[in-house]
Structure formats: C-alpha cells, structure tokens
C-alpha cells in the first residue's frame, strides 16, 4: 500500500514554436532567437500530476535536465503548484540523445524517491516521445503512455489509466512505481495562483543535481553514451503553393476546374 506518493514531473525548456521567426537572409526558420518556454505538452503532464496529488495527497516535484537557464521552467512549475523542483545540470550531460537523457532522468527520479513519474507526450523541439518509455526501461518500471485520464488505486499499489490506442481506448492497470506519459491536450492546465507565483519568482531555489550527485559515470552520460549522432541536416524547401485567395465560391470553383482535380 502506497501512501502520500511522490509524483515527479519531467518538464523541458524548448524554443517557443509560436514565436519562431523567419530569418530574412535565408528565408528559413530562426529558432535561435525564439524565447524559451515550457514544452507545451508538459503543461498537460503537470496538470495530470497536480490533479493526481489533489486526489492522493503526497507531493509533486518537477525535474528538468538542461542548462542553468532552464530554472525558468521550474519556476513556472512551482508557480503552478509543484511543491519543489530539481535542476539536473552538468557539462557532462551535453550532447545526450534519448538514451543517456532517459538514464539521467531515471537516476534523478530514483534520487527524488518517485512513486510516479509523469511526462509529456513529446517535446516540440526533439519530438521523439522516447524519453518516458526510456525512463521506465532504465528503471525496470511499468509504463503508461498516451494517457487521457488517471485513476489511482494506491491501496493496491496500482495506477489505472485510460490510454488512447489506434482506433479507440483502453483501460490499463499498472503496478507502482510507474512512468506516465500524458497525451497532449487531454486536460485543461490550471492557472498559477498569485501567492505561488510570488513565491516562485522571489524565494524559490531549485534543488541542484549533478552527474556525481546522481552517481552517474562520465561514460554513461552525454555524447559518449549516445548511440545516435546527427550525420547531416538538409534544409527542405517549403512546398510551392499557389496561395490564391478566391473572392467567392464561383471564383474558387473556376480555379479548381483549371487544376483538373475537378473535371
């Protein structure tokens, strides 16, 4: 029987999709100058974690692996209601692909004594969705991905989820401890309360965890432990479109006739 569970939420700082501008010289997206924000799907993860705590008690801790500037997303998490937050930061983590990233987050989840790890569906910058199953695999825990709703049965050390599967839904019960990945857009993230917001901005200091703190060797993390590498990047020319705006339905039909899609 689990009481007062520790719920750890993984949040990541990413370039703001909506603010990515076009580089006037190259005509391509300029992500470097976009402001950094919390990965949108992680807001759903946070909401799911906070809602779970509302039901079960215990505490919610946010964790992020990234540079010290990523403290910003931890502040956001604390403002939204997380009890505390950890910055997992070390030069040794640089160049991590999903294998060492999930190992590092798995070690942090253990260090924080997590019963449940909640993640987003995927990040908008690397968009792999591999980190949550990766954390579960490193820890040998159960996992629940594409989760729409959670139902705790702590008396049986079980977390039940409604999962989105191809063409439908399923209800799955998983043993604790467990890693959850919440389907993007499945809940309405709450707004930050004023008190919490002031605390997050003025007083809050994150717990800091390095590779040494987590007992991770240099060759287990970062570039050295990453099986994949980027071999090259090609810019894809945007698909050429006519971009004609019709005056009315007649005009639209006339244009469509010319394309021969409509005889």
């Amino acid at each position, binding site marked *: 029987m689990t009481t007062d569970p520790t719920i750890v939420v993984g949040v990541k700082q990413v370039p703001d999709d909506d603010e990515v501008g076009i580089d006037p010289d190259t005509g391509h997206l300029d992500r470097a100058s976009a402001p950094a924000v919390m990965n949108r799907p992680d807001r759903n993860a946070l909401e799911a974690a906070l809602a779970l705590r509302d039901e079960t008690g215990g505490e919610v801790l946010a964790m992020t692996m990234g540079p010290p500037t990523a403290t910003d997303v931890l502040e956001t998490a604390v403002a939204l209601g997380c009890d505390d937050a950890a910055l997992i930061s070390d030069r040794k983590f640089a160049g991590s692909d999903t294998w060492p990233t999930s190992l590092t987050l798995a070690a942090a989840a253990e260090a924080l004594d997590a019963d449940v790890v909640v993640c987003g569906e995927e990040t908008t910058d690397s968009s792999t969705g591999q980190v949550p199953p990766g954390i579960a695999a490193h820890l040998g825990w159960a996992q629940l991905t594409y989760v729409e709703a959670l139902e705790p049965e702590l008396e049986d050390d079980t977390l039940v989820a409604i999962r989105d599967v191809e*063409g439908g839904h399923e209800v799955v019960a998983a043993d604790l401890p467990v890693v959850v990945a919440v389907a993007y857009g499945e809940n309405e993230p709450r707004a930050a309360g004023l008190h919490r917001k002031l605390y997050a901005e003025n007083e809050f200091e994150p717990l800091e965890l390095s590779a040494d703190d987590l007992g991770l060797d240099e060759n287990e993390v970062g570039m050295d432990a990453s099986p994949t590498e980027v071999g090259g990047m090609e810019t894809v020319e945007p698909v050429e479109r006519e971009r004609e705006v019709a005056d009315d339905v007649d005009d639209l039909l006339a244009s469509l006739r010319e394309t021969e899609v409509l005889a």
Partner: protein
Amino acid sequence: MSDDGTVDVDEYSDVWVFVESHDGDVMNVSWELLNEASILTEQLGEDLVALVVGEGCDDVAEAAIERGADRALVADDPVFEPYRADPYGEQFRALVEKRKPAIVLIGGTHTGRDFAGRVAVPAHAGLTADCTEIDVDEDGLLQARRPAFGGNVLATILCKDHRPQMATIRPGVFEASDPDPDREGEIERVDVVVDEADTMSAVREREVGDTADITEADRIVAVGGGCDGDLEPARRLADALDADLAASRKAVDEGWIEGARQVGQTGKTVRPDLYVAVGISGAVQHVEGLNDSGVVVAINNDPNAPIFEHADYGIVGDLFEVCPDLAERIDAEGLVEVTND
C-alpha cells in the same frame, strides 16, 4: 557489449520489420515498412525478417511472407494479446540480443512508439524516432532521416558503433506492397521468454472502433477546431467531392472524430490529389502531414490563418456557409462523379 555499449558491428546482419497486429488485424504501416525495407535488404544482400508477436498469429506470419519477408519469426502466446509494453519489450529485447539484427524498423504508431524504447534501452541500441526516409550507405550504415524544426530541416541520424540500428517510421509515408501468394519463406516459432506472472500491467478493457485508413484516399476533406463540434457542413462537402473525412488533432482531441483520421506529425501522412482544410488553422504539426497533397484548398474565416500560406486556393469565409454552398454547386454542375465505395 563493452562498458560504453559499443559492439562489433560486423556480428550484426539482416533487417527486421515489426509486423504490428491486434487480434489478427495488421496495421498497414507494417506492410509499408516491409516494402521499403526490401529495397535495403536487396542493397545489403541480407535477409528481410518479419517479427510477428501475438496469439494465434500464423496467418499474420504467412501474410508477411506474401508481402515480401524472407523469413518470419513468430512469438505466439496469450501473454501478447492484447498488447502491453512490458511483455512486448521483453520478448523483442531477448530476440534482438540473441539474433543480432543490424537494422530494426517499427511503425511509429502508439504501439510502436510505446515499446521501442524498452528494446533500445537494454540493448543500448540507437533509436531514431518518426523517420520519413531510410537508406543504407556503401558501408551498410543506416541513414535514418526525419523532419526536424517543424519540417524545415531533414536531419540524417546515424548509429555507428551500437547495434541494432533501430527506427520508428511514420505511418503513410511509404507505399505498401501487394501480397504475392506464390512467395515462399520460412516461418519459425521462437521461444517465448515472458511469463504472465512477471508482467507489470493488465489491460482491463479495450474498445477499438474505427481504424479507417485515410492514407490511400484520393480526396480528403479535413475538419478542424473551426467546426465547433458540427461536422455536418464538412460531411456534406465530402459527399459532394466523394472525399474521405480527415481531421486536425484539435478535432480529434475534442472527440468529434476518431483518432485514426488525424493528419499530421502525430497522425498520418496523406497524399491525396485534393485536400480541403475546413476550419483548420495550419499549425506546423498539421501541415507536415499534408505537404505531399496535390491541390490544397483552405476554408477559414480568419484571413491571417497560416493555412492560407500552405494552400493553393483559399476562401475567407464562414465554413458553415461556404461548405454547403460549395457542395451544392458541385452537385448542381455535376463536377464530381460519385462512386459508391
């Protein structure tokens, strides 16, 4: 495997394709992968191996041979039906470690993305997500290409010193092969290493309805947030155009339409001759899935909606008026020969 997980890559050969089936129904992406992977095995001079997991799945294994596999490995046991991440991951991992495939391809479905990491992590394999192109270079190294940064860049991901080279592949990007009933291949039943007593999860209910395949549609009318729960106008237009109905993620999340019909980064890639976006804003994640369409039409009441940048023809207006209007004109002028399929 050495301490850092690197291996002698020469010990690894063959290309494996995971054939995803639920209750005997095979996901089309598996056939797409078998077709595309056969190009790789031809270049490599190696075998194309189908991996079939489930209960009572001999038919699936035979179908995999007909669709191009040289061999099929079958893990058949009640523990594998319905799908769960831990038994699938464990069985797959054991096979990979024992048989040492060079390349493993898995459809980027919820199922494929769910368990792929449970194989790649213990094997310390390279795993590239959601590829849209795959090739091998002259040394036989897999070049896994995937869109990055909202589709503006195609990144090539390599895995030089670890094996297998694993990748999940987006559904709908490759064409499926036709079955050839005369093809022959070896079907081998493998040892099942998973015990029900060791599993960490249990499926209590499973309800699967519409698994429509929009990837083969010639014409598509796609609905978005602008429909506000009322798909009638879009349906009316789809009927007039003899088109299949598809959707943005917003429309799916709102529960107006089944997830199988979602277009985009986390949905399907489609390539119809005509794509009509109805009340869809044109977010990058959506547009990625429709870029291969022939003619794109957008109906949106916001002249600044990004979808107009990705459309050939747009009309600024209220979809509740434009759709029926358009449908009526198409019907009246007999512009589309409607087939009954």
